[in-house]
């Protein structure tokens, strides 16, 4: 019997539908649920109000990350509201029997960093979290996306959410990436082509040589940013790179369970002849180190280019001009040489070991520019440990940088890591929205290499000019 060719996305989605509602959403089963301190408390209150228990506490994992300090984590959290929120996560987790990696726990870190690095994230899973960058986990061939607090309550109480099945898009990038071009540049390039809303309503599969040759860290960066073009998530077919990454991690299957899982994982790919609602193909040679100049992630360009005019920029002229005015930039400006006040490397987008290796490669033998404030924030304690073991910390210290403690930090600036009004930050995070990194802050999104080049020169600099 011949089967209809299916996409990877179809295979995982369809195998998790508990019930189909006519002219309504699917009742969708969730294998792994991550929670953090910010979007979970009201969900737990909801459970209490209804007198309902957590249906499968062993499928939910809690970590504190969004609202945590990145210095002096051994001391009590100063801000009473933040302390209260962290306490609520701890209390709720204990009450319902949910694993909790709070502040100070050696496994603690950003939810989308600790899930994969501990082998909780596996191919073929459905994964949700009250955080839009849950799309990160799609790098493993999982369907992973962000949900709201009402849905967090649904998962806690019934292990399901109600979701209409998204449409399918495939994005192919062919060829080989040039010098100084990283996964972050690939994703900023794609978003600049599709716009910040270009994939809304779709789930994206990334395919082609560039992704096949990419490390798991790089794939996570790409899938992470899927939401920034409006897609619910991104997914990449698992392969030998994926299996090698997972093998041996703490919560990954072992022995006979590993063999069984592996056999299944190898079936997780898009069949020949399967169709997508939309498909785009790009050439890796067209991509250079990227930087954003506006207030949404679609407003990005190659670092040697000039800021597009409002006609070229697309969208409404008024919104485009409002955005450039906020940034203090003008149409046709070059970004090279623009002054940088702050540099942030970290976040669920670029807070993994490979990102710090890249940063250190540029920084090595140079000094931090005097006027630049740099926040170097590992994605987890495990990453922090790697930074120390690999000698990266020595390079950073020698160059005048300090390493902070793990957390979301200046990506969303819920804690004290805020960029002051009017100041410019080159940031490896995911959003350049107005005030995202602090009221009035101006964010330029870029790769760890571009961030490092800015940190040592004090201005926007093409990292290729600093590479051997």
């Amino acid at each position, binding site marked *: 019997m011949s089967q209809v060719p299916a996409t990877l996305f179809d295979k995982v989605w369809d195998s998790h539908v508990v019930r189909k509602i006519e002219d309504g959403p699917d009742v969708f089963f969730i294998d792994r649920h991550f929670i953090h301190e910010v979007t979970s408390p009201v969900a737990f209150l909801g459970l209490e109000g209804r007198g309902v228990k957590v249906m499968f506490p062993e*499928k939910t994992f809690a970590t504190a990350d969004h609202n945590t300090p990145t210095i002096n984590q051994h001391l009590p959290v100063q801000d009473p509201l933040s302390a209260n929120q962290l306490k609520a996560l701890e209390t709720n987790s204990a009450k319902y029997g949910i694993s909790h990696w709070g502040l100070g726990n050696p496994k603690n870190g950003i939810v989308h960093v600790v899930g994969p690095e501990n082998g909780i994230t596996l191919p073929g899973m459905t994964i949700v979290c009250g955080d839009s960058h849950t799309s990160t986990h799609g790098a493993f061939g999982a369907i992973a996306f962000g949900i709201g*607090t009402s849905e967090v309550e649904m998962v806690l*109480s019934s292990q399901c959410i109600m979701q209409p099945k998204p449409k399918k898009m495939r994005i192919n990038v062919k060829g080989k990436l040039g010098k100084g071009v990283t996964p972050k540049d690939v994703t900023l390039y794609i978003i600049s082509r599709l716009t910040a*809303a270009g994939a*809304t309503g779709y789930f994206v599969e990334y395919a082609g040589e560039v992704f096949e040759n990419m490390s798991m860290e790089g794939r996570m960066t790409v899938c992470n940013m899927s939401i920034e073009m409006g897609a619910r998530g991104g997914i990449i077919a698992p392969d030998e790179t994926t299996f090698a990454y997972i093998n041996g991690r703490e919560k990954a299957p072992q022995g006979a369970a590993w063999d069984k899982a592996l056999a299944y994982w190898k079936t997780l790919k898009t069949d020949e002849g399967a169709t997508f609602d939309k498909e785009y193909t790009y050439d890796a040679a067209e991509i250079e180190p990227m930087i954003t100049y506006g207030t949404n992630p679609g407003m990005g360009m190659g670092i040697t280019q000039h800021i597009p005019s409002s006609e070229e920029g697309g969208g*409404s002229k008024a919104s485009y001009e409002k955005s450039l005015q906020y940034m203090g930039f003008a149409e046709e400006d070059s970004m090279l040489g623009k002054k940088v006040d702050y540099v942030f490397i970290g976040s669920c987008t670029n807070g993994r070991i490979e990102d710090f290796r890249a940063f250190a490669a540029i920084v090595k033998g140079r000094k931090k520019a005097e006027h630049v404030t740099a926040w170097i924030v590992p994605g987890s304690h495990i990453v922090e440990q790697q930074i120390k073991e690999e000698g990266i910390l020595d390079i950073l210290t020698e160059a005048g940088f300090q390493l902070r403690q793990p957390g979301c930090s200046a990506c969303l600036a819920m804690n004290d890591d805020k960029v002051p009004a009017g100041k410019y930050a080159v940031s490896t995070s995911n*959003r350049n929205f107005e005030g995202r990194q602090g009221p009035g802050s101006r964010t330029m999104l870029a790769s760890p290499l571009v961030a490092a080049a800015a940190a040592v020169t004090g201005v926007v600099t093409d990292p290729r000019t600093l590479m051997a």
Partner: protein
Amino acid sequence: MAYDKFTVLTSTAVPMPIENVDTDQIIPARFLKATERKGFGDNLFRDWRYNGDNTPKQDFVLNNPIYSGKILVGGKNFGSGSSREHAAWAIYDYGFRCVVSSFFADIFKNNSLNIGILPVTVSPAFLDKIFTAIEADPKAELTVDLEKQSITIVATGESESFDINSYKKHNLTNGFDDIDYLQAMKGEIAAFAEKSLY
């Protein structure tokens, strides 16, 4: 959490003709520290609405007394960004029951439906007509009829239909939520979980 039933809403509207209104504008992250759902309306559009010294920004639409109502009309790609349901809570808490745009970000749309705000997607041309009508008369009313799935500019009678699936429509009309539905099928979910690989 229970919410008010949505049937027919006739109201003046607040115009916000800006594209890509993201969730960090709707409710900045520093106001997400609460552990209860209350008071978010005070910080709706905080940094567009208030100066650094907490004085109101006079040119922002929510501070302009000629505009009011239970309907917020936004530009394309409204609600992009974060999954924070706090954005929808802030809009609801401020007093809006319906948001109209030519295009919504997915998660924001889901969150709105889940808490009883009706997101109405109209064509770009109809959105322009709404903005024009409000510009001509800030007291111009819109009627949003969920049963008929239509939105009408009362003064001109111009109308357009909008999409919503019948499941969500039923929920909003009756004030039901998804959790009630899921609780009623827990046996089926438990049986499904038995066969799950993970």
